């Protein structure tokens, strides 16, 4: 259960494990039916590009390159914030992206075009919640 601790290695293998669970999730087929997005999860200075089509993760890449042709929005936070977020029972102020991003707290930054972030909030939050099983 090492990955449930605050020192879980949030690397590409971990993202792959998460993406598999996301793609097996039957609720996301319903609530994410129109969820198409290219977003970045930033952990310290490492960026992971997540490509979503119809609520399923099509691609995760570590690092950003020219051929990505950009992304829509980014969720960037220190590894310490993400490690708390992904715990099965996350602590107060770290249990939610908006909680971490709220101006009162500033534990996470939402960057880029935030409209698709808000448009897909329900499916996105469900998808990120699955990180707690990854």
């Amino acid at each position: 259960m090492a990955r449930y601790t605050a020192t879980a290695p949030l690397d590409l293998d971990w993202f792959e494990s998460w993406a598999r669970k996301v793609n097996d999730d039957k609720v996301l087929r319903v609530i994410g039916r129109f969820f198409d997005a290219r977003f970045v999860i930033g952990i310290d200075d490492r960026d992971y590009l997540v490509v979503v089509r119809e609520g399923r993760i099509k691609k995760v890449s570590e690092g950003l390159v020219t051929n990505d042709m950009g992304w829509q929005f980014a969720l960037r936070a220190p590894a310490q914030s993400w490690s708390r977020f992904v715990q099965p029972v996350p602590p107060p102020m770290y249990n939610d992206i908006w909680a971490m991003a709220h101006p009162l707290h500033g534990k996470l930054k939402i960057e880029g075009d935030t409209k698709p972030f808000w448009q897909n909030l329900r499916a996105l939050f469900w998808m990120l919640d699955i990180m707690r099983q990854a």
Partner: protein
Amino acid sequence: MAKFDPIVGRYVYVQHDGATYRTYFEENGQGIPLVCLHTAGTDGREWRHQLCDPDITKNFRVIAFDMPRHGKSIPPGDFYKEEEEYKLTSKFYSEFIMAFCRALELKKPVIMGSSMGGNICLPLALNFEDELAALIAVEACDHSPGWWIDPLHHPQIHGGEVCATSVFGLMAPQSPEEYRWETWWYYAQGGPGIFKGDLYFYSVDHDFRDLCRKISGRVPIYFITGIYDFACTPEMTQATADKVKGSECIIMQGIGHFPMSESPEVYKEYLMPVLRKIVQADRETNRPDDREHERPSGSGRAARDDGYARDRYARDERRGSASTSNEQGGVRVVEFDSSGGRTRR
């Protein structure tokens, strides 16, 4: 034999500032009037557990009403041609609460409100202390910025889903899934722009950072906040309570911003001692004869052992393809195809 909730709902016509508001409310119980205020963008259904709890209703006439534009209380007839977006103000909100209490001829009610309903307890304490017996300000503080934001009312964003999901993380992971999603549902049902408009009061118009100190303290105020509340943190509540005379600050563990609806059993543990103090204070003053209430039988914890609450709140704590990894220009990539195949490059 049909099973019924003991809650009864009615409409009352509330006069305020030259207008008449057909206002929906639900009630149950007898005794001290306990008027419950819903949170932003929702309605009185949030209080259904307290409305049904005999440990509460044996001493209190519990009343939960829907503010205009919320729940079953329709907006003003000309809302469709308003030239400014809806914004709840501290003045209208506090005056309407008192107008509702007068319409029902409530004598010295206790007000219990959560979130914006908690924040409004401060103006009520400052401006209407002679008409109130006590205030229970749940998830309340003197200033709660950061919530009056456009994504909550935007034609390209589903208002119901975004309002509901934006508050979901205000609830504690320990709270029952069933009740968290019920709260989400109430939020998803708000009228267009109403949640955002309420948050104008919550985050902009409500600023009691200085006015707090002017509250006389003659009306007891109980602040109760859950540790998962990221909009009004325990520290923010404590800092407010430190400035308010006659107040008490209670911090709840393992619960968030919607205690009455997200985790009614946990909330009850913290609420009952407060209600007992209010009953005791009520007995020590000369209450009208029509308020008969029995002495509470034992402690709150003992009251819970009758099994009623446990049964009533019985809950189900359920909860609960292939990929490609490759390198592109020094970048490691995992790709997933539609057939479930996996490649790693």
